[in-house]
């Protein structure tokens, strides 16, 4: 867009009058435009400084202190980080659980979403209804999802084990079994895969049909069309989806927090990074220690995002690569 000269008058007023009032007459139109830009975005800038940048800096400082919220923070150097990474067994569980959950959920979510989007992309009547049904679970609040899935996963009279028993399978105790609670959480999250499906479907529908026509002329089979046309053309959407779902999964909180309140839950098998941070900060008043957890999580998210971005040059295909 060409930068057009703007005048500084607010609303409909006499131009000269308002410029005198604002004292802006000596400014060039470009300077005035810059002033307007900063004026208009100032609410966001103020929020950025007050609610993000400022707190982030303070949080780094806190992570090097011992602070119980009531006495002034006491500098302890790297103590929090050393304790966290070498001596805190619960944090070890939290890390392992978070990683296992993320590495199960993210790939499964993409594979299933791709499969469903592929089916929905077929030109058949009624696909909109299926799309809506598949999207709906995504909008159910996590609190409600967790409540109902306690009964989906109930060992004896639960929905899932009832279904499995139809095939003669004796299902596990899911949420009560340390070995099955993470797969159970993954299944619960997969219930909400509709959002990824809709993203991928939109991406698929944006693929130019000439590509498929060209592939057909070359005698491509259905499998070829999917792996040689659909998948490469879709890879930027998959890439975006993957980053967002990794970042989201690493910050899982609500499900774990709710399930942990149940005395029957195997806590060590389900504790994750954010719930552990929450406990430290707001149950034990260890604000410094909890801040250190936050920054370890920050680094983990940063590293994972970087890894995915780095790897993307190998597997993500951008259309403009072709044109260059």
């Amino acid at each position, binding site marked *: 867009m060409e930068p057009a000269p703007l005048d500084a008058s607010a609303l409909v007023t006499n131009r000269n009058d308002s410029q005198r009032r604002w004292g802006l007459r000596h400014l060039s139109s470009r300077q005035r435009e*810059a002033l307007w830009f900063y004026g208009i975005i100032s609410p966001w800038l103020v929020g950025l400084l007050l609610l993000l940048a400022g707190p982030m800096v303070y949080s780094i400082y806190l992570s090097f202190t011992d602070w119980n919220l009531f006495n002034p923070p006491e500098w302890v150097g790297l103590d929090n980080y050393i304790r966290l990474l070498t001596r805190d067994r619960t944090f070890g569980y939290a890390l392992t659980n978070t990683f296992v959950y993320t590495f199960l959920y993210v790939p499964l979510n993409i594979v299933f979403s791709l499969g469903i989007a592929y089916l929905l992309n077929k030109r058949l009547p009624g696909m909109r209804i299926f799309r809506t049904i598949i999207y709906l679970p995504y909008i159910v609040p996590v609190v409600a999802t967790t409540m109902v899935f306690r009964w989906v996963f109930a060992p004896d009279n639960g929905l899932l084990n009832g279904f499995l028993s139809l095939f003669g399978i004796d299902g596990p105790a899911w949420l009560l079994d340390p070995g099955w609670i993470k797969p159970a959480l993954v299944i619960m999250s997969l219930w909400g895969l509709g959002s990824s499906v809709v993203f991928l479907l939109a991406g698929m529908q944006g693929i130019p049909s000439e590509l498929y026509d060209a592939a057909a002329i070359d005698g491509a089979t259905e499998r070829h069309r999917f792996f040689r046309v659909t998948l490469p053309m879709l890879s930027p959407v998959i890439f975006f989806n993957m980053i967002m779902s990794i970042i989201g999964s690493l910050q899982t909180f609500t499900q774990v927090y709710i399930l942990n309140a149940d005395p029957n839950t195997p806590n060590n098998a389900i504790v994750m990074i954010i719930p552990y941070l929450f406990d430290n900060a707001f149950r034990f008043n260890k604000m410094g220690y909890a801040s250190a957890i936050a920054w370890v999580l920050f680094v983990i998210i940063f590293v994972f995002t970087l890894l995915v971005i780095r790897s993307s040059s190998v597997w993500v295909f951008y259309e403009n690569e072709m044109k260059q």
Partner: protein
Amino acid sequence: MNRRIGFAEALSTYAILAAISVALIAPFLLMVSISLTNDTSTVQMKFHLIPQEFEFNNYVRVFTTPNIDIGRHILNSLTIVIGSIIGQVIVSSFVAYGFARFNAPGKNVLFLILLGTMMIPGAVTIIPQFALYRSLGWLGTFTPLILPNFFGGAFNIFLIRQFIVRLPTELDEAARTDGVGPLGIFWYIIFPLIRPIAMAVAIFTFQFNWSWFLEPLLYLQDADKMPLAVAVRTLSATTSAGATPMWNLVMVASMLLTLPMLLVFFFGQKYIFEANISGGGPAIK
């Protein structure tokens, strides 16, 4: 895909999608069924996928039982949601207008920062924010939940900015020639034109705040002030070991938490899918 689909392929596609749909609907049905179960069966934990009892009175009891009083929690949720929507829609649109229509040194860097902030985990700010709100005396009030929306949200600003960039500038130019200032152009020209995306932002803000859990739990402290999402959890928590929560009432509350989300989705799905496509699709370059 311009390809003819054979009968067998159509049949198998429908069969798979139907199976998936049934699996995805079953938990909804279970929620409805448990919410209609009477107290006797609830205590014995006799729940069925297909409702066997129709205790509609459960839906009245959650409003009339004093220590549950779902009505108050719904009001709390609505207060938070409406305040947040007003802030997000107006301020995010305004800031997006700045990013879309004005040039200034440092703008590109600021836009990158805006995108970058979406990646920052809330965990690194929650403790200082808590301390800040505590020192301002805002704990136990809705202020820390509503006020931050009046600084705009990064994702919403990005979404609306993408929309404004695609609007033709002729109307702006014409208004400018007529002596309308930047604020007038926003209010009389841009804001009416961005209605579809502003609707999407309002819907997203509703969805997020209606189901918001962590921060309300933290900042409100007083059980009476909690929004519905937190109240559902409280209702399900047993105070003593061995005691069972009234699962039928917990599911009634879960239903009341879920239904508005479904309603808003059905009335707003046009806007949601459009925003998904324009904001998250391959259009990001």
